[in-house]
Each structure stands twice: as C-alpha cells, then as structure tokens.
C-alpha cells in the first residue's frame, strides 16, 4: 500500500521506465556490463530524491539483464556475461528464422523472473534483517569480516589476489577523517580528501573507465546486426511448455542471488543445465530449444531482484551491480542493513514498488527499445566509446563540480586497468571500500566497550558465529586451492 502511494507521489514510475530503457540499451552493448550501465547512471542520481534515484538504478539492472540477450540471440555475442547461456539456443533459433520468437521468450521469461525475484525480495529481506537487529559492535565487525571473506573466496581465480584486492579497498577506505578521533589520515594536506574518497568515484573509475581503457587496446570487432526481427510472444501451448524451465530459473535465481559472489552468470548456466536435465525435450537443447532461452533468462532476471536481499538485510552487496546500487544508497546518506527497514522504510517500499513497475514495463519498453538497440549496436565502437567517455566526464563533474573528482575517477580507471591486467578481481576492492568504515569503527567501538580486551569478539555469540563461518570460508577455499595444486602437479608428473 505504501509502495503504491510512493509511486503516485514521486516520479518513481518515470524513473522505473527510464531505468529499464537505459538498462536495455547498456545491456545490449557487448562489453558494457550491468554494473557499468548502472555506474554511468550514478552521477545523475545526486539530483534526484532517494527513492527515485534507487528505482532508476535498480530498474536499469532489470533492463540490462534482458538487454544482454538481444545481441546474444541476433549476433551470437552476449551483451552481458549472464546472457552467455542464452547464446546456445537463442542464436540457433535465429538461424532457423525464429529470432522474433526467441526475443519474445527472452523478454517474457525476464518479466516472470523479475516478478518472482521481487516477490522473494519482499518476503525474505525484512525477516532476514530482524536477525541482524540484535547486532552489537562486535557482531557488526564480524559481519563485515564475513562479507569480505565470502566475496574474497567466491570471486574466482587466485585467493591471494582476491585478498589483496579486499585489503586495497580497506586501505582506500582509511583515507579521510578517522572515525573515532576525527583526526586526518592519508589526506596529503588536500582539503578534497578530508571527507574520504567517495565509493561512487572509485566504482565509476574501476568499472567504466577501465573498460574504455581495455577496449582501447582491442581491435573493433563489431558485428553488424542485419536482423529486422519483431518480438513475437509465445502462444498458450508454448507458454505452458516453458513453465517448468521458468520455475527452475526462478529457484536457481533465488538461491544464486542470495549467495554473495554467485550472480546472474552462474545462475544462468545452472538453470540451463537443470532445465535440460528435467526437460521432456532434452534432445532439442543446443539446437534451438525455447526452454534453453527461458531458463537462463528467467534465472538472471530473478537474480536482479534477489541479489538485493543481502544488501538490504545485512548491508553486504553480493555482486558488482549491487555494489553500485549500494553506491546509490550511500550518495543519499542511507545506511543499508537491518535498520533500513526502521529508518528508511519508505525508501525500501518505494524501491519495491519501482521494481514492480520496472518488471511490468519491461514488456512494453522491451518491444519499443528493439530498434534503438539494433541501431546502437551497429554504431562504430570509436563513436560509442567517445560518447561514453564524455558522459563519464560530464556526469562525474556534475556530482560536486570538482575536477579533483574527475582526476580520482581517471586514477581509479588506471588502477582498474592494471587490476584487470593482473587478473585481480574488482568486487573485493569495492566491498573493502564500502565496508571499511563499518569494520574499523565497530572494531574500535567494541574494544572501547571491552576496555581493549579482544576476547569480546569471542564472547559475543553472534560475533563468534560469524567469525567461525568466515574462517570456514577461508579455510575451505585454501583447502580447495591446495587440492587443485596437488592434482595439477600429479597430472604434470604423469
């Protein structure tokens, strides 16, 4: 009820539609991930009221997940990583002259996924957050450590590199004013650094600028979309056939969305495999199966809503996209975590309402955006990148009218470029940056309460439980790495 009231009294509906349209365009551009699409919007959210700003960001996430399937189906190039599984059967359907139907299945399944994900978000977030209401400073510190541990261990690749990334994020978070004494740290006498480094600047730099720098090293391999396909929705009989695959996508998307570090890509592939396993038409998979599109597209759209659950309930973003969404909350001074349902309930309800509008609007906007998407995908990469570069410069400057911010963004872009070169993941850095204050301030508060006695972290049962889980995650990941190393050595010896 409150959601409906907010939707009527704020420009939330308009923001949801703009967000979806922007998300579809960004998602359709290969190389532009949902997190980049959202990061490019961040500067615009400064001038908006909080609910509209968050709806704009969250809706663009919803739109991007569908947008990624357009080039996946038409030119065999996924617009987003999460659309990679859609390529398998989507492109086959296109080759069989059924591109319109493939796009229709993707869009329709995306709507089902978004709505189911939203339902899960509404049902699960608040009860989960109640668990966190009994948290004290030691528990908050342990929660921050757990969040970092989970992301570090699930980032994929080298555990050491992910830990370096997380610590680097925590280091950047220490720039500015000390949370307890109010003294300055690492400000180099610059007034611009007194308030610390805003996560939004680092996110835009890491995600968007580094992508442009990486693309500058690559040749333009743009494949022209020749298709004039019109979206065609499945009939009643086909819709019934798609239902089990969509249900699988919903379940997998819910589980993977709630799990930090998993995300839409993993969800899409698991959903695809499970849909194939349970399908009556297994042999059609890989040869243009409609279920092969429905399952991954439902899953990645479900994730776009369920990934927000750990963010709202515990204040921990589980993916790059939700980290950018967290940036939106921080811009408006809203602290995510259990208290958000008490202190900013109107914003949360507005976000639910906005996501509902975005999910439904996706159907119409998806059809309307088809032609602009094809036009945009066909533009030469040089023009597109130049306009994105200019958008970053204009958008970031508009935040504080500061050229110092722009130099920070460029600097973060360079750091991001080298991180990508060294295969160091971004997410632990972003998480370290946004959780740095929570971790340090609660660690020190806990020690003030205990008179400097570290055993407080072990005598507080919640803190103890969370730290044990964090240790298990690290130990499990170390064990897995050791086993893999031993296995590869044995293989090399044989």
């Amino acid at each position: 009820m409150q959601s409906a009231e907010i939707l009527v009294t704020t420009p939330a509906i308009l923001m949801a539609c703009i967000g979806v349209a922007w998300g579809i365009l960004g998602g359709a551009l290969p190389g532009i991930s949902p997190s980049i699409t959202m990061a490019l919007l961040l500067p615009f959210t400064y001038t908006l009221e909080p609910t509209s700003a968050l709806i704009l960001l969250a809706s663009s996430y919803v739109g991007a997940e569908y947008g990624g399937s357009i080039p996946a189906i038409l030119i065999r190039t996924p617009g987003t990583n999460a659309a990679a599984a859609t390529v398998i059967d989507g492109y086959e359907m296109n080759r069989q002259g059924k591109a319109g139907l493939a796009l229709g299945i993707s869009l329709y399944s995306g709507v089902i996924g978004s709505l189911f994900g939203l339902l899960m978000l509404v049902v699960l977030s608040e009860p989960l957050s109640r668990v966190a209401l009994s948290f004290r400073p030691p528990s908050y510190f342990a929660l921050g450590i757990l969040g970092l541990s989970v992301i570090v261990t699930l980032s994929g690749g080298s555990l050491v590199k992910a830990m370096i990334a997380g610590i680097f994020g925590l280091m950047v978070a220490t720039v500015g004013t000390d949370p307890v004494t109010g003294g300055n740290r690492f400000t180099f006498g610059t007034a611009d650094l007194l308030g610390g480094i805003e996560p939004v600047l680092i996110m835009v730099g890491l995600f968007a600028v580094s992508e442009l720098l990486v693309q500058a090293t690559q040749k333009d391999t743009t494949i022209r979309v020749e298709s004039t396909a019109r979206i065609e929705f499945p009939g009643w009989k086909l819709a019934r056939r798609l239902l089990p695959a969509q249900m699988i996508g919903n379940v997998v998307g819910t589980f993977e969305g709630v799990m930090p570090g998993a995300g839409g890509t993993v969800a899409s592939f698991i959903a695809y495999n499970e849909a194939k396993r349970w399908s009556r038409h297994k042999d059609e998979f890989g040869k243009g199966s409609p279920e092969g599109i429905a399952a991954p597209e439902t899953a990645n759209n479900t994730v776009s809503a369920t990934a927000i659950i750990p963010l709202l309930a515990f204040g921990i973003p589980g993916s790059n996209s939700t980290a950018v969404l967290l940036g939106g909350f921080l811009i408006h001074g809203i602290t995510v975590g259990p208290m958000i349902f008490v202190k900013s309930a109107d914003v949360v309800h507005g976000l639910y309402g906005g996501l509902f509008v975005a999910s439904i609007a996706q159907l119409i906007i998806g059809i309307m955006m088809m032609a602009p998407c094809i036009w945009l995908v066909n533009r030469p990469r040089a023009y597109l990148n130049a306009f994105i570069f200019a958008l970053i410069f204009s958008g970031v400057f508009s935040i504080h009218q500061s050229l110092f911010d722009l130099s920070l963004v460029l600097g973060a872009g360079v750091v991001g470029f080298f991180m990508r070169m060294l295969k160091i993941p971004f997410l632990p850095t972003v998480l370290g940056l946004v959780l740095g204050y929570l971790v340090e301030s609660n660690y020190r508060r806990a020690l003030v309460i205990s008179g400097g006695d570290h055993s407080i972290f072990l005598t507080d049962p919640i803190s103890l439980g969370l730290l044990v889980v964090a240790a298990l995650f690290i130990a499990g990941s170390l064990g897995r790495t050791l086993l893999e190393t031993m296995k590869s050595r044995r293989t090399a010896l044989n």
Partner: protein
Amino acid sequence: MTRELMGGLLAILLGGGYFAMALQIRASALADTVGPAGLPKVLALLMIFLGLVLSAQALLSGRRKSRPAAEPASAADADADADPGDEIQGGLAGLARAGGLLAIGIGYLLIVRTVGYVPAIAALIVAATLYGGAALSWRVFAIGIAGAVLYYTLFVLMLGIPLPAGHLISLF
C-alpha cells in the same frame, strides 16, 4: 618478469609505502587503544605478507615451468605468461594505446576551466573518436559538436547542473 611476480612486487611496494605513511599519522589525545594508525598498520603488514606469498607462488611456478624446458625454447614460448583469455591485447603497444586515451582525458581536465565545457567536451569526443580509429572527416567534428550540445542540454538546461563556462567567455 611474469604478471604474477609483478603483482606481488606491486603489493609489497604498496604495503611498504602505506606503512611508512601510517607511521606519520599523529596520535590524538582522544585516541582509543587502537588509535588512528592501528588499522592502517595491520592492513599494510597484511598487504606486504600477501605480496610476498604471491611473489613466492610466481617464482615457484616459474621454476616448475622451466624444469621440463630442457629443449630449446621456440619463439612461441617466448612470452611464458601469455594468456589467450587476456582482455588487454597488443602488449606494450596496447598499453600505449590505453595511455593515449588516458592522455585525452587528462587533456580535457587541463583545458575545461579555460575554454569552457562545450568546446572541451566537443574536443574530447572528437579526439577520442579519431583515436578510436574513425576516419578523419567533417562528420567526426559535426558529431563531436552535436554531442557537446546534447550533453549541455541534458546537464545544464535540463538537470540545472553548472558546468564550467570557461575563462575565454569573459574576453568577449
């Protein structure tokens, strides 16, 4: 030097530099038991430790790779660290290309206060488009100017954000 080793050494350097700066943080009369330099010092030491681990891993894996390579190395083996999945292409030339784009961005920062937003952003679009490989023609300039006007309309006229007018405008 492999990328892994480079990453490890960078981490050690970063940790060392950060530790040196952490030592200079002034203690406050209001300081708690940990103090403002407490966490930074721990983070610096952790970074140095992880850098050492990464470097050691790189050296060990390098030694393991070189052991069976008793036969002469072919040209294809020259870049032992090459990875077909690398996003960054073209080796040093690729790095230079990325540096060129960065230089365009820095150029914008240097001129925007003087020439103002519209000419500066138009120059940025034109330069980045040409640098991206577009052929030099009147279209590039026309699109650059159109883009600048589009962004001016969006940011200044529609969103009411004051973008730099520039010092040159005061001369007229």
